[in-house]
């Protein structure tokens, strides 16, 4: 084999491996997502460095970039003949730009928002004083009665981001800058948090919509993440006949189908 064709074969194999990794990541395989992120983390971190003057936390930028990368897996189509990074880098950059624009947006709070923000600040101080730890968004939501998404807006408005070159600890600090103090994303694996966040948003196992018995039947009969069983075997475990198991399964599949095809019904049958 000539060197040229060997290189072409290697490159083809690399392309196929990358494609398979992207497809597995899109399918929700956490290990594939982790490997994909590890592969592209250096370029994502490099892209984050270009926002050095934007007064935004580098780790946050990297996390947004990772979210952008994983979003790209949910859209990237190998049939489009575009290399994955050429496609994904667009979404990585866009995610970072969104964060920078969001955090550096001039914000004028209304009187009401200012009052709400004061409540949030008091609730946070109370929580830290009582529990010796920072409250979660949910803790703050319960304490203030404000919905979580409204909290997010208020907290985003409140933020006064430090510049990466700004010294920590004010004038009498150690001389360490914010940028230097931020943990190396490669070492700290901040992407684990991003993977968690994305998995929480993507509850995509339809079986979770079924009640326990129906879910048990469907998973056992079709061997979903477990060895497949006959209707008779499942019935013996559940203490019902095979025919009853068949009915439970039919009802389960029908209910999933119905849930995916609920028609929108305007009041009083209004249509245009």
């Amino acid at each position, binding site marked *: 084999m000539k060197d040229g064709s060997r290189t072409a074969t290697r490159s083809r194999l690399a392309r196929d491996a990358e*494609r*398979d990794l*992207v*497809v597995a990541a899109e*399918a*929700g*395989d956490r290990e594939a997502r982790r490997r994909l992120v590890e592969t592209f983390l250096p370029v994502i971190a490099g892209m984050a460095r270009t926002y050095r003057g934007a007064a935004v936390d580098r780790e946050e930028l990297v996390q947004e970039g990772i979210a952008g990368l994983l*979003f790209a897996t*949910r*859209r990237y*189509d*190998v*049939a*489009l*003949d*575009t290399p994955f990074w*050429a*496609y994904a880098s*667009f*979404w990585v950059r866009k*995610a970072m730009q*969104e964060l920078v*624009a*969001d955090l550096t*947006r001039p*914000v*004028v709070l*209304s009187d009401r928002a200012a009052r709400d923000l004061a409540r949030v600040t008091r609730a946070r101080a109370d929580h830290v004083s009582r529990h010796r730890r920072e409250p979660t968004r949910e803790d703050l939501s319960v304490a203030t009665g404000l919905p979580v*998404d409204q909290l997010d*807006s208020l907290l*985003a408005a409140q933020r006064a981001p430090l510049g990466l070159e700004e010294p920590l600890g004010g004038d009498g600090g150690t001389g360490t800058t914010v940028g230097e103090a931020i943990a190396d994303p490669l070492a700290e694996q901040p992407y684990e948090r991003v993977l968690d966040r994305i998995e929480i*948003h993507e509850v*995509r*196992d*339809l*079986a979770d919509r079924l009640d326990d018995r129906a879910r048990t039947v*469907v*998973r056992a*009969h*079709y*061997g*979903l*993440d477990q060895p*497949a069983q006959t209707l008779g075997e499942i019935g013996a475990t559940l203490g019902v006949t095979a025919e009853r198991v*068949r009915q439970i399964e039919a009802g389960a*599949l029908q209910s*999933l*189908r119905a849930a*995916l*095809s*609920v*028609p*929108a*019904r*305007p*009041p*009083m049958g*209004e*249509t*245009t």
Partner: protein
Amino acid sequence: MRHNAFVYQSLDEYVARAAAFLREGLDAGEAAVVGQTRRGLAAMREALGADAQRVTFLNVEEAYTRPARTLAAYHEVYVDQFRNAPVVRVASDVQVGPSPGDWDEWLGYEAMMNHCFAHLPTWALCTYDANRLPDSVLDAVWRTHPEVLTDETWTASEHFEDPADVLRAITPEPVLLDELRPMPFADDLESFREHLAQELAAEGVSGAKSLDLLLAASELFANAVRHGAGVAEVRLGRAEGRFVCEVVDRGGGFDDPTAGYLAPREGVGSGLWVARQLLWRLELFHSPRGFTARAWL
């Protein structure tokens, strides 16, 4: 449905127009939905002030994945909103990617929006950022929206095309996949699913994804039995890194690029609608083997 577009030059212009559009609806007792990126949502919340509490906010960074899934996501919003409102207004920022193939996908999405929700009393204002999007995408706005907002006036598009024609023009001709293998099957749906489940397990496909395909392929199999004079052949395997299942039927098939893109309604079968939202891609085409429904997982 009224399906319009608005091309904006700045976030301020977007916010002013979209907030006014939604407020007008709220004042008339309609429901209001805004689909935007986080930055856009924050700006809209601020602009809407107290009215924001009556508006549903949808993060488009999560919703715009595959066109059929995005349509299904908006349909879920409609199902919810029509419980309490006679009319729903939506201002939604379209998320277009970096490649021409991606532009075509979302051109098709916009075209199908006209058919998908045609039966519902809704007014959708699709918003496009002139500073971020290529000219070809901005020009195509006129092909898929009957009216476009320009200089404070609604202008009827002279370039609007039949959505089916748009979809037909951008849908690539399916490639024959010789690498797929035949799968034995009986005439009943249950044994078809059992065989398919075995194949999926042997390929190491996760339980969640397997269930998606079992449901989607059941629809294709049932359609072939009900409308296609029976199943002639089932083929499956891997292509382009994905698990693929073909159901070939004995009937003459059909030629309708909009099949499966109509949101559920009286008198319209929803099998292909269900299949499209569960699959990466669904192709329906005539091949030398017969009329073929090809499911890409």
